[in-house]
């Protein structure tokens, strides 16, 4: 499972990367330090949509910080959810601020969840459930089985393919 981790804090990116890697090899992490770089990984440049390059890196889930300079996590979420080719990718927000208004506004435009930092092991466990909900890729290269066929506690050694996570 490819997780695009978007956070301008190098400390938080490192911790998120470690927590995700500790999950038995389930996640491949692609870290980026800005919303703009996240859009590049997703095959979008600001304001443009180049269909042939959309999600070439096969991102399965986006985990993004809310407060970032230039382009906030909210802006990133909005851009992803407004794009017909990307909107099915689950986007999970995170912030050190536990602000009900911010949480509600993010969920209102399609965020799967909102984690209050510091990012913890139980948050990783929740991420697994959101990533498992991702529909089959149109290009059909990653997901060979419908989600309900995959047993809950399947070992990743037995999976034909361990998805990769891009952490920006």
């Amino acid at each position: 499972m490819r997780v695009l981790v978007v956070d301008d804090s190098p400390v938080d990116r490192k911790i998120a990367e470690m927590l995700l890697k500790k999950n038995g090899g389930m996640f491949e992490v692609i870290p980026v330090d800005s919303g703009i770089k996240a859009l590049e990984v997703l095959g979008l440049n600001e304001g443009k949509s180049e269909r042939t390059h959309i999600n070439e890196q096969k991102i399965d889930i986006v985990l993004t910080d809310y407060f970032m300079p230039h382009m906030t996590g909210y802006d990133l979420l909005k851009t992803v959810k407004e794009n017909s080719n990307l909107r099915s990718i689950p986007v999970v927000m995170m912030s050190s601020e536990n602000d009900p208004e911010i949480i509600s506004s993010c969920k209102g435009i399609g965020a799967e969840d909102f984690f209050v930092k510091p990012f913890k092991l139980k948050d990783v466990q929740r991420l697994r459930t959101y990533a498992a909900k991702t529909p089959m890729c149109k290009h059909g290269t990653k997901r060979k089985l419908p989600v309900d066929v995959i047993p809950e506690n399947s070992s990743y050694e037995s999976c034909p393919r361990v998805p990769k996570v891009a952490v920006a």
Partner: protein
Amino acid sequence: MEIGNLQRRYLDFASTLFHEGFLDNQFTQLQQLQDESSPEFVLEVVTLFFEDSEKLLDELSRTLNQQAVDFKKVDAHVHQLKGSSASIGAQRVKNVCVAFRNCCEEMNQEGCLRCLRQVRNEYFLVKNKLETLFALEQQIVAAGGSVPMMW
């Protein structure tokens, strides 16, 4: 120095850091993530924290000493410092950042400068403590021992 003594010194010192509020449980969480495949994880994360924090402190000093202070910018930097200090468990630094953000909201330059002095002070204190902790770890390993777990 004998391994047992070093290990006891390490545990006593680490215990003090928690009792005096320099570190909180988040630091322990980071230590629990460290393993043979990432034996330097805590050191790497803390090093990133040091680099990031010093940049932020310099930037805060520059911004607060302008004639017209951009309090939004100050707040953004303090928010980042608060976040990263919370992420590594640097509790006292984080707590000063909370007060600092209140001063930003009030657009109180004097208050902000006071908070900057406090946060700088707390940052260098915890930096010193952590460097001592890591030095003790290195001494234990160099003597052939293993670093005792604090949980």
